[in-house]
């Protein structure tokens, strides 16, 4: 593996779904190319239905591309075993998707268990991860998902993705449905983890502020296409109206807040 090879690379990838009742097919991902370098955190933003989740599902082969090539660690995944691939990649799902019949420990330890780790090794790893996502192991290890708050569940979701020490992490709105304070804290904590563990991360969000604060680079999606990608600074100078509009959103909101809260508390 050469040092500068991207760990995730999409080359002209296309994916269509059979449309609902009308028989038309929906092109969810349309001629998408991008790359995520080792250690990089790429955030994909875009409106609802723009194809973000589809992109992520393509990356761990939950679905297969109609056209184009997807490489993970340089290897074309269409030729690799999808089960082994998924065990190498950590995934945080859009809705958390913890298994309701498994305890916190059962959820976090699932991929190591599938990989055949010893019981003791799995248990040690679970405690290590709980510490990493700042949950008290003794208190939470044996709880079931329905006994956790939304934020705690999101943390467990992140811990589960990291359990088998993957180099690559895919995250689909990992901090959605949380109050702004928790969301902000979790985001920052993850960014710190990402740097500490040297992960390569592809994160999806609709929250531009979050994207701007966390990302090394941002890709903006609309109707299946990537309109623009680059560092936040690069994108600020984009000549695409939609991208500009989108990136201006936080600033516009801040201005409105400024007007509403005259003491400048926001």
């Amino acid at each position, binding site marked *: 593996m050469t040092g500068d090879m991207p760990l995730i690379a999409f080359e002209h990838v296309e994916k269509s779904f059979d449309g609902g009742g009308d028989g038309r097919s929906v092109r969810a991902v349309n001629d998408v190319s991008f790359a995520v370098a080792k250690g990089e955190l790429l955030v994909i933003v875009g409106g609802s239905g723009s194809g973000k989740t589809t992109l992520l*599902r393509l990356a*761990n082969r*939950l679905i297969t591309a109609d056209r184009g090539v997807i490489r993970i660690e340089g290897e074309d995944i269409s030729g690799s075993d999808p*089960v*082994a691939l*998924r*065990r190498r990649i950590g*995934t945080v*799902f*859009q*809705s958390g*998707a*913890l*298994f*309701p*019949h498994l305890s916190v420990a059962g959820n976090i330890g*699932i*991929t190591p268990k*599938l*990989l055949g780790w010893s019981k003791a090794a799995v248990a040690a790893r679970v405690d290590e991860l709980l510490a990493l996502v700042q949950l008290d192991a003794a208190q939470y290890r044996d709880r*079931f998902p329905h006994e956790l708050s939304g934020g705690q569940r999101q943390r467990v979701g992140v811990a*589960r993705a990291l359990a*088998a020490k993957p180099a690559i992490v895919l995250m689909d709105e990992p901090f959605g449905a949380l109050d702004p304070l928790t969301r902000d804290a979790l985001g920052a904590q993850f960014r710190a983890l990402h740097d500490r563990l040297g992960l390569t991360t592809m994160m999806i969000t609709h929250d531009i502020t979050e994207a701007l604060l966390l990302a090394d680079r941002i890709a903006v999606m609309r109707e299946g296409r990537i309109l623009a990608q680059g560092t936040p600074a690069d994108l600020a100078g984009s000549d695409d109206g939609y991208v500009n509009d989108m990136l201006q959103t936080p600033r516009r909101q801040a201005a409105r807040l400024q007007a509403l809260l005259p003491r400048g508390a926001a």
Partner: protein
Amino acid sequence: MSVLQDPRWAEALAHLPDYLGSHVRVSLAALALGLLVSLPLAIVSRRRPLLRTTLLGFASVVQTVPGLALLALFYPLLLALAALSLSWFGTGFSAFGFLPAVLALALYSMLPVLRNTITGLDGIDPVLIEAAQGVGMTPRQSLLMVELPLALPVMMAGIRTAAVWVIGTATLSTPIGQTSLGNYIFAGLQTQNWVLVLFGCAAAAVLALAVDQLLALIERGLTQRSRLRIAAGSLGLVALLAATLAPSLAQPGTRYVVGAKTFTEQYVLSALIAQRLRDAGLSVTSREGLGSSVIYDALAAGDIDVYVDYSGTLWANQFHHKEIKPRAELLAELTAELARSNVTLLGELGFANAYALVMPRARAEALGIHSIADLAQHASTLSIAGDYEFFSRPEWAGLRAAYGLAFRSQRTLQPDFMYAAVASGEVDVIAGYTSDGLIAKYDLVVLDDPKQAIPPYDAVVLIAPRRADDAALRAALTPLLGRIDIAAMREANLRAAGGDGATTPDAVARWLWQRIAPR
């Protein structure tokens, strides 16, 4: 006498270990088989809409077949299979009792298990199935580690329904030779012993309720992820099974099995035979309430050892003869024919239970009717009633042809009501049974059949092939031969229909033995 001191309770209780144990065994086997078949089928069909529709449709259709009919259908089917297996592989199997009951009940249990397993698997959030894939599970691991555990509460509800259905329907396996709590119900209905009927119903209901509640406990444990509940429910089930199965498993192996068909006289005679065998120091069990078409095959196959049948029935139904022969000739030929199947006709008991034309004595005398020939001259002004099958039987065709009988009207009545109907003048003549006790009770008269149009129906004792040379059995039963005349049998039948504590088949059989025993 208080209700609880009724001796029939004690008699019912004495049978409980045997009946309950057999009931639990057949239900358990059926449920296990049903699960073994339906669970994989449901899992396989979960992503195959066509297969799923077919399966659910088939199971629903099975469900609409009445339980009794389903059980009855399996018997001839297995009989044919057993014959086939005997001719192909040299070994047959018993198509009687346990096997057909288990198969039919297992089929019956399939619908709720199939439906709930499919529904349960369908109801899983697709996000979780994708998550299972996403964390690196193979389809098999996803099924075992995520989908089945999540569907389990719904599946358990189906298993519960199936268990209750099977336990309830198992009471209907008595007529095909499987001992069950239904033995109480069938015997009780026949001998108008409501204590037995009640006892059987209550026992089956309590068993079903207990199993249902224990399974419910496990189900709740599964939904609430409470290990304690799951363990308590499972422990309760195991204890229940052990308690019901242990006594019946402890019974001795070599036993003589006495069969009885589904009417009062048969219950009395099988009780009498059982008492004789017990007195001779032999160990005995009874298989009562067997269907008329089942019982002979059961004897020939060695599933029962001895029972009483009627010469005309065997002649027409078993050997399919159309012509009717005089009594002695028919008996001789029948004995020879039975011997060819290695079945021993030990001898006649001394009475016949044939169809007969019966009318009130006073009316017959007033009209000057003694025989069916006399009746024929008045028939155009008279009405006749018979049981459900009489008017389609060869006897009726034979009678009409022989005597030129043409009645004003004919109708079908339930056997129990026929006698009262003719006694009260509602009908003029009935086709009754010669050994029925009600003939004496209502002062009716049996009309002679000078042309012998009705075949003889002598009660005969049949012995299974494997007991053919059993001297102890023969010695115990020989004292019965030729000793039960029609008057004795009629009175015994009348007593057995009395419906109180002194009239259980056992008690009547003891009375009958007192009356006929050689002194």
